[in-house]
Structure formats: structure tokens, C-alpha cells
């Protein structure tokens, strides 16, 4: 038994060294993301609201805090300039609607997740990345927000979920369509997709058995 003691001690030391300290440092960008997350959680946790009301309120938060115009430009990248001004503004609108339709449906899937800001770093062009974790039962989800100062106010211009950028992902999907079929066809596909999605917003009444465990997490 005695021979185990030093080994156990050494192991305990090793483990205490391996424990990573929480990152320090405060930025207004961090505070901005924390505040955004808190606002969203308040809505999600509010039992008094219907799904429609929740979707509406979260849309309001998102519209104030995301710069959809910049996001849309980044998504289309070089193809942006191939669109007429009218097509451009339609794209911004449909892109925004697409996000709210697809993510709005998840509002009833909320299972007491919380958000923790874990770090931040400066990026090129004065952008700032704020790193967060969604804490839940099971693996945490890493979500990074890319922020840019627009008229003196931080705006979210990309969301990177588990190392996958929303902007980059849409960019590659739209690239082929615009190049091969043209901007009109791309807009038509997006409109169609949104119309199909909207008809079952915010909850299509599907049975989701996982919800029964919501209280026990």
C-alpha cells in the first residue's frame, strides 16, 4: 500500500497541473456577447410566451445585433458585384429570413442550456472574435462570434459553430449556384426554401420524444 502513496501524489500533481486556468481579460466585445446571450436566454426561459412570441422577440434581438448586410456581402463575396442593387437587397432580405426560419424552429428545443464566454481575440481589420461555450447535458458546444464595429457599435458578422463558419458554409453552397445558374435562380431557390420552411413555423407539431427529459437535465 505504501508504494502507492507517492504514485498517487505524483498523479494528483500531474492532474492539478493539467487543469487549465480560466482565461482572463475583459473586452467590451465580450460584454456585448454576454449581454446578447443573456437576453436570448431570458426569452427562451420565459414560460409565459408562446412560440410565436419567442421567435418574434429573438428576431428583434438578432436584427439589432447582427449586421445582415455585411454577412450577405461576405457570403456572396465576389459574386456580390454581379447582382443588381435590387437583387442585392432581395438577397439580404431572403438570407435573413432563411436564418430566422430555420433557427426559429428550434426555439422549442431549448433544454436549459446556458452560455459561457470563454475568451476573445483580436482579428484583422479591427474585428474581434468572442469565444463562447453552450453548456448543456452532454458535450459543450463551441460557438465563436466574429464582431465588427459598425458606426461605433459592435455587430455580429459571423457565427462559427464547432469550428464551422456560417458565412463560409453558405458561401460555398451559393458559389456553384450563382456561377452555374445565375443570381436569379439562386434567389428563386432561396425564396422557395424559405416559403416551404415558413409554412411550418414555428412548430410543426412533430413529436419530439427527447423533450420529455428536459426537466431532468
Amino acid at each position, binding site marked *: 500500500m505504501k508504494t502507492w502513496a507517492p504514485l498517487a501524489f505524483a498523479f494528483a500533481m500531474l492532474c492539478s497541473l493539467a487543469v487549465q486556468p480560466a482565461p482572463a481579460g475583459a473586452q467590451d466585445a465580450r460584454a456585448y456577447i454576454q449581454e446578447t446571450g443573456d437576453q436570448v436566454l431570458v426569452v427562451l426561459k420565459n414560460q409565459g410566451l408562446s412560440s410565436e412570441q419567442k421567435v418574434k422577440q429573438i428576431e428583434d434581438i438578432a436584427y439589432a445585433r447582427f449586421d445582415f448586410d455585411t454577412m450577405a456581402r461576405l457570403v456572396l463575396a465576389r459574386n456580390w458585384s454581379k447582382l443588381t442593387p435590387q437583387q442585392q437587397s432581395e438577397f439580404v432580405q431572403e438570407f435573413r429570413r432563411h436564418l430566422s426560419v430555420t433557427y426559429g424552429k428550434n426555439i422549442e428545443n431549448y433544454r436549459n442550456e446556458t452560455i459561457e464566454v470563454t475568451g476573445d481575440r483580436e482579428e484583422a481589420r479591427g474585428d474581434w472574435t468572442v469565444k463562447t461555450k453552450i453548456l448543456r447535458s452532454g458535450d459543450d458546444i463551441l460557438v465563436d462570434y466574429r464582431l465588427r464595429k459598425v458606426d461605433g457599435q459592435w455587430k455580429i458578422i459571423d457565427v462559427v459553430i464547432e469550428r464551422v*463558419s456560417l458565412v463560409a458554409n453558405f458561401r460555398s453552397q451559393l458559389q456553384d449556384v450563382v456561377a452555374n445558374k445565375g443570381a436569379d435562380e439562386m434567389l428563386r431557390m432561396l425564396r422557395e426554401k424559405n416559403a416551404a420552411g415558413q409554412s411550418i413555423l414555428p412548430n410543426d407539431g412533430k413529436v419530439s420524444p427527447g423533450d420529455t427529459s428536459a426537466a431532468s437535465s
Partner: protein
Amino acid sequence: MATWLAIVACFAAPATALAQATSADAVATAAAAGSTSETASDAIPGSNDPWEPFNRSMFDFNEGLDRWVIKPAAVGWDTVLPRPAQVSVDNFFDNLKFPARFVNDLLQGEIDPAAVTLCRFVVNTTAGLGGFIDWGTDMGLPKHSADFGQTLGRWGVPPGPYIVWPVFGSSNPRDTVGIAADSYLDISALFGDIATLAAARVVQTVNTRSLLLDEVDTAREASLDFYIAVRTAYFERRQRLIQGSSDTERGNDDLYFPDYSDQEVLP
């Protein structure tokens, strides 16, 4: 919310007992494919996909497999087993990945993460009752992934073109070799015969899928072309896992970030 996590986890996650057979073929194919030189196709990262027609048909096959077999099983599993129990099952299988993770941490010269991996394994296997409870994370020893495909990437091996394997899902020659190599460090063979292992693999697949029911649905709906969405997500996630050491991911990822500085798109 965990849209892309879901896609990647679901399609990168190996699946059934077919796995063993597939990886052998994979090595041969990968060796052949590895010799062709890599050409930067265009500005969109991850679009190196010369086998797209084949890949798309495999992708459709996997989607069908999911729709008709795996997802229905996962929905049933989800009805029977409460979520915390699913998470425990997930923890258990994850804990068994220790040897490959530890060795790859070391091969990548990641000493601190290797220590974290070792400590997690010891703590979770003992106090965590064989891995079902993840005390490590609560103690400040977060989980991270390390595999041989990632190690090869750190050593400068390029990914090569995108491949979709039947059942396995998204990969590329580099990561296919990685999966084959990591299978030598799979300790599950110590715990039973082929039939037991196959059953365990089925449980693992169905359990993983049941944790991602909503996420995969959202991912499918959120994309205009789900194949390209998955392809891009796979590429991007793998690149970032290679560039950033698990938790200390830093700066120079602009190469794979969208081109934020593109002059033509500036207001």
C-alpha cells in the same frame, strides 16, 4: 443550435460493423489517391472534389441509410432512454478512445493535452464508473479530440480530395489513413467477441444519432445543397482541429476563415 456539430459528428462518426472491412479498402484507395498531386482548385476552401459524382451517390446512399434505418432506430432509442442516460452512454464510448487520443497527443508534441487525456481516462474510468460519468470535465479537464488524421495534418500532410465512404461518411485520403491507423489502438477488442463488438458499435451509432435528432434536421433544412454544406463543414472543421491545438486555438486561421478582407465586397 448545434447544427454544424451535428452534421460533422453524424457523418464523420464511424458507423457499424462494416467499418473494419471498409477501412482496409480505404487504405488501398488512399495510398493510390495520395500520390496524385494536389491542385488548388479555386478560392472556396474544401472544394477539391474531383470524385463528386461518386461522392454524391455515396452521400445519397448514406442519407437513405440514415432516413430508413439509423434515424428511426435513434428515435426509438430516444423514446426509451432519457437524455442523461444517453449522455452517459456517449461518455462511456468516448472514454474508450483514450489510447489513440493519448498517443496522438504525444505524436503532435502536445504534452499538456496528453496529460489532460491521461488524467481524464484515469478519473473517469475509476470515479466515473468505467467512463459513464465524465468527472474530468467538471474538474477542469475538458475533452478534446486527437486522431491520426489530425497528426498527419500537423506534420504537413495535405488532406487530398474529399471522399464520401458508404456508411463511414465524409473523409479524405489523409483522414482515411488516420482512421485505419487509429483502429490499431482500439481497445474495445479486449472486451468481447466480434458479435458483442458489432452490437456495441450499433448501440454507439444509434445513441450518437439520438443525441443529434434535432440538430441534423435543422442542418438539412438550413442548407440549399446539403452535400456541399457537409463537405465544407467537414473540411473546415478538420483544418481548424489541425491548426489550433485543442483549446489554445489562435490567430492564423485567416486562410480558412472566409475572406473577410475581400475588397470587392467592402461597403
